[in-house]
């Protein structure tokens, strides 16, 4: 199951979206996510969905790749939707014993799921078109003013990018250890929650040991390649805004305006 997380998995392709400055993508995604929570209107979601689809098509990332990011949160989605569906008071349109379904509940459940879905799809699209290194570069640059408050921005960015690099490796390792323990008769499926958690111990201990060993190796390798902190360091791909980045910012503003107009002037559905 953990293999399915697409966050932090870059999809290599040559598109305008991939070439955009990561700062634009970070800010754009933030704007998009915030915008999803500012209205309660079908037209607004139509605009949000339309824009998302347009960006996806331009980015050349296969749709199935982005949707894969939804799988791990699928149950949470269904759960919150059901909760809203059954526990929202209002006009009842269906009744079975104590269970009541209301129009308001249906509407709320629908809006909430759509919001969550687009929140995840939007951020997945960003991480699929932005290498984690670009992403941390962007954060390093965007958070640079915090340096004056003695926040170690470079170190944090470095740690994030290394963590992202090792997630797939450790996931693979977990898989390998699990299989090795299963081959020795370990049982991860039966028993109650506490028993299951206890059965996870033989996975966690070797995983932890290996992670520490890897960290040690990596620190040596970084030392060997002259790493000595953020001072005096240059960048292979320094972030410089290009024409297309300003165009993208304009598109962001256009999206907000369009969203506002659609929510305000179109008949409420």
């Amino acid at each position, binding site marked *: 199951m953990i293999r399915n997380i697409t966050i932090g998995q870059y999809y290599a392709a040559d598109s305008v979206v991939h070439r955009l400055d990561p700062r634009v993508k970070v800010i754009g995604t933030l704007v998009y996510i915030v915008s999803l929570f500012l209205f309660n209107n079908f037209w607004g979601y139509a605009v949000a969905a339309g824009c998302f689809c347009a960006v996806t098509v331009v980015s050349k990332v296969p749709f199935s790749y982005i949707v894969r990011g939804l799988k791990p949160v699928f149950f949470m989605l269904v759960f919150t939707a059901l909760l809203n569906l059954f526990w929202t008071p209002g006009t009842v349109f269906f009744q079975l014993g104590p269970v009541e379904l209301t129009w308001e509940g249906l509407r709320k459940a629908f809006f909430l799921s759509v919001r969550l879905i687009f929140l995840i799809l939007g951020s997945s699209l960003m991480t699929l078109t932005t290498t984690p*290194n670009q992403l941390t570069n962007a954060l390093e640059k965007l958070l640079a003013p915090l340096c004056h408050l003695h926040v170690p921005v470079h170190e944090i960015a470095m740690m994030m990018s290394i963590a992202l690099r090792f997630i797939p490796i450790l996931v693979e390792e977990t898989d390998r250890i699990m299989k090795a323990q299963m081959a020795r008769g370990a049982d991860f499926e039966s028993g109650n929650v506490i028993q299951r958690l206890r059965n996870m111990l033989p996975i966690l201990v070797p995983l932890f040991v290996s992670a520490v060993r890897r960290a040690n190796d990596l620190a*040596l390798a970084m030392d060997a390649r002259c*790493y000595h902190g953020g001072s005096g360091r240059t960048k*292979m791909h320094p972030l410089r805004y290009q024409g297309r980045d300003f165009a993208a910012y304009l598109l962001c503003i256009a999206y907000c305006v369009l969203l506002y107009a659609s929510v305000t002037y179109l008949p409420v559905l």
Partner: protein
Amino acid sequence: MGIKNKIIKSENLAHEYARRDESGDVTGIVRALDGIDVQIEAGSFVAVLGANGSGKSTFAKHLNGLLFPTEGTLYIDGMDTADSENTLAVRQTAGMVFQNPDNQIIANIVEEDVGFGPENMGVPTDKILKRVEECLKETGMYSYRRHSPNHLSGGQKQRVAVAGVLAMRPKCIILDEATAMLDPAGRKNVLDTIVRLNKKEHITVILITHYMEEVTLADYVYVMKQGKVAYSGTPGEVFQNVGMLRECRLEAPQITQIAQGLQKAGIPLTQGVFTIEGLAKELLELAKKR
């Protein structure tokens, strides 16, 4: 001969570390290196051979300024490694490729990883891009430049690591058992790359290994045993010395063992055959003479 032609020069180099028990008390001193006197010429291809625990990895870490001598001195390209002012320059002069391909790739994209070294050295952006392109082409990994390292094979990852070291423009590359975790095809690719760099770019190569077959590539071999250089010579000389190898818990390559067996059986082979092609050629010539 001046110190300048010797890229690596060690004088009575020794390294000790304390062995501790679980509560952190010192239970003993381990002398991992014990009086190493080595001189390696620039542009040569040197193998350091030794069984596990012979001190060869500790030696490698000294060459890169990751460990400092407890006794004696070590000069890399005329710089004393013990002087902390030299550390960065030493690491740039003598680049290191480690054993585990996964644990030495820092970035999530091949080309960004190759650029990591030059970034740390403060090389200007346009020069980094040029170097990365050159080094990836040199190691035959250019077509993978935008790939994630996780999707590469072990041999490909090690070639990326070699490119990452090359991008720092070193005079010397140290491979610390860099092929130990690779399959035969990957191992061959990495070694071919290294041999080409040595011949074409005249980069000094220090190959640390316990694979006999790899040693045949070297001009000169140091055999290590318990922190000391037990023997040194050309690969041919080393392989002839079966008794010494056995004492160091090593074995001559299979092909040399066959050649020695044939010699014992009375077939007049020349000394120091250690490639399949070489043996085949000699046997063919002998057959023709008959």
